């Protein structure tokens, strides 16, 4: 709800509402307008450099038309969507369960909170490099451990479906802490009186979860899900270091394709168009998932 406190608001709040929003608006105006406008403009141009000067040529919708024919883009789209959905749902479930338990136990809460935070503290490039070593079929620690219990080692990054699954695993390891941290904070901010009332009324733990906790946690879960989804669409470091998009195009993800087209191949116009399309598709995905989540919540 956005418009409470009618009578008391005049004067004081009316003044302060502008001052308090101004800093954020200033940041957006100064720093975000230019990049987005730039991206949109570049997506309909072709830019070449000659004699040290940029030559802009209007390209209309040519770049957008070329996208469906780009195999890396098509595969990237499918892979990224699949990756995002698998990884994010797993992270939401795991993160929520862990946060729920961590908020309920009395002892060791600080330990769990710190322990679960550790993966996101590590720079993406280190995660990629270290997991690459771990997945190495000849020397990696994972196959070594499997060998200890008598199981055969696998080529984690060499087979197509396995490579995809391996990357999802790394992502889950990397980002469940993010979900955990936010949902734990959310759980701890919930007013306790509603829980107490439910318990007094004789509700079981499961009912309490479904009808009290989850609905109240919905905003926190939704925001975490949305941001997690967005960041998973931007996944780059891990893929770059683990598989480079291979084998074949099994792990080609969009941000990688964008990076390759935009930077490595220096096709700025085309890369911008790709970014714009990805952005639009992502917005669509978010709107659809939020609507689905909301319908689920309303049915509960």
């Amino acid at each position, binding site marked *: 709800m956005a418009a409470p406190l009618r009578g008391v608001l005049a004067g004081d709040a009316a003044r302060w509402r502008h001052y308090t929003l101004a800093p954020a608006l200033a940041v957006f105006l100064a720093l975000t307008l230019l990049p987005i406008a730039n991206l949109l403009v570049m997506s309909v141009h072709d830019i070449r450099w000659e004699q040290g000067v940029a030559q802009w040529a209007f390209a209309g919708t040519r770049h957008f038309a070329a996208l469906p024919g780009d195999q890396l883009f098509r595969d990237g789209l499918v892979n990224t969507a699949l990756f995002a959905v698998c990884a994010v749902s797993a992270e939401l479930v795991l993160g929520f369960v862990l946060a729920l338990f961590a908020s309920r136990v009395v002892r060791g809460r600080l330990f769990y909170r710190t322990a679960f935070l550790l993966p996101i503290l590590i720079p993406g490039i280190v995660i990629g490099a270290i997991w690459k070593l771990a997945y190495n079929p000849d020397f990696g620690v994972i196959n070594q451990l499997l060998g200890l219990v008598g199981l055969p080692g696998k080529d984690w990054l060499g087979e197509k479906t396995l490579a995809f699954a391996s990357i999802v695993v790394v992502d889950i390891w990397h980002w469940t802490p993010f979900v955990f941290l936010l949902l734990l904070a959310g759980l701890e901010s919930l007013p306790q009186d509603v829980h107490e009332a439910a318990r007094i009324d004789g509700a079981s733990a499961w009912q309490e979860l479904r009808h009290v906790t989850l609905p109240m946690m919905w905003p926190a879960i939704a925001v975490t899900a949305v941001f997690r989804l967005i960041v998973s669409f931007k996944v780059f470091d891990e893929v770059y270091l683990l598989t480079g998009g291979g084998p074949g195009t099994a792990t080609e993800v969009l941000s990688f394709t964008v990076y*390759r087209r935009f930077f490595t191949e*220096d096709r700025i116009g085309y890369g911008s168009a790709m970014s714009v399309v990805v952005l639009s598709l992502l917005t669509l995905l978010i709107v659809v998932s939020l609507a689905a989540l909301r319908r689920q919540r309303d049915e509960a």
Partner: protein
Amino acid sequence: MSIATAIPRATRLAALVTFAALAPAAALAQKVAPITVVINQSPWFGGFAKVVEAYEKETGNKVNLDVNPFAGSAEKQRSSVRSKEGQFDLLVMNSTWLAEFYHGGFLVPLNEIDPAFKLDPQVIGYDDTAYWDPKTKTNSSKTGQVYGVPINGNIGVLYYRADLYEQAGLKVPTTWDELLANARKLHNPPNVYGMVLRGARSASDISYDWMPYLHSYGGAIFKDEKAGDFTVTLNSPQAKQAFDMYLELAKTAGPPNPGSYGQAQVIQALVTGKAAHGTPVIAAWSQMDDPTKSAVVGKMGVAVLPRGPGGQHAPTLGHFIGAIPKNIPKERQVAALTFLKWFQTYDAQLKYAQAGQPPIRKDVYAAADFGKKPEYRWMKAMVDSAPYPRMMYTVPEGAQIVSVIELRLNQAVIGERTSTDALNTAAAEIHEIMRKAGYKTGRLPDLK
């Protein structure tokens, strides 16, 4: 006189005396503005830094080194040359983005700074990449001007287990067929793989690894790049021979998953003793004899890359050229050129080689010390390779072309496509790229 004037005068006097003392050593270099060199971190960086230190000591000129990770180096240099005033005075560019910078017109011909400058004749040619002719848009020492000085002569070489060769009584291969035979003999999975290839798909793995095969079998991506004929010949019979040889090595002497080996994994296999042969670049040599990095210290041999039957050796360039951007003030351009002049001298290159890095001058390789000492045994391979290195591509569309080759060849290695299909598809896609970019191009009919 007041203190205020006395001190500057004293400083000037001191400077004069110091300069006079250093003059003989600094005869080649005069006192110039400080410069900033942009360069990426690498195994040979240590050697370069030592050489820079020597330059600063000898001439009193200041050189700042802006050291970046390799990933992102191209972007940083791009940003600098495209802005109104550049951040960097000397660009150390890798061969992968050399074409882009030449075509974009960002570099200044060195003779514009100093009409008398010439590249020392002892400096290795590196496929004429230090020269550029803006009219024909080619690297030509005949019609072009000199734009840069090579900083590092990194090329691909053949690493082989000299100890296993001795045990099995094998000779160093000069052709791919001989290499195949040797690799098969030493192939003993899972302990030792005969040959590890860079079959992975990345910014540049399998395409770089396969180029020497293609060129030494007499094939090429384009019909005649230097003459401006960009007819795509990637799917020629010679190319098929070259690729089939590659696949044969992978299948009969390689690990079960060559499609996931990037350069780092190939080097890992070599240093852990898991591979009998591999073809990473010479820059990886520093890891081979280091006991903290290698389990095969003293056991590695290096040789020039093999060639196809009747063909020429054709190692691919992965080198670095130092050039000067247009968008910096004249005095810094002069300063940067002063450094380059010093860098290409015999003394400077000798220091470079003593630090274990491939020097850019032919005569340094012949210096007395190196032939005898086992730690310099890599030099013979470099000398043998010197007349042959080739560029992968010389057009700004190179990155797109490599992208196609990486994907299609990798698909063949992992068994998704046949070699014929891979080459045909790649050729068709490259033709499209060149056609859209407005080059004079065409293509060969599909291989059957």
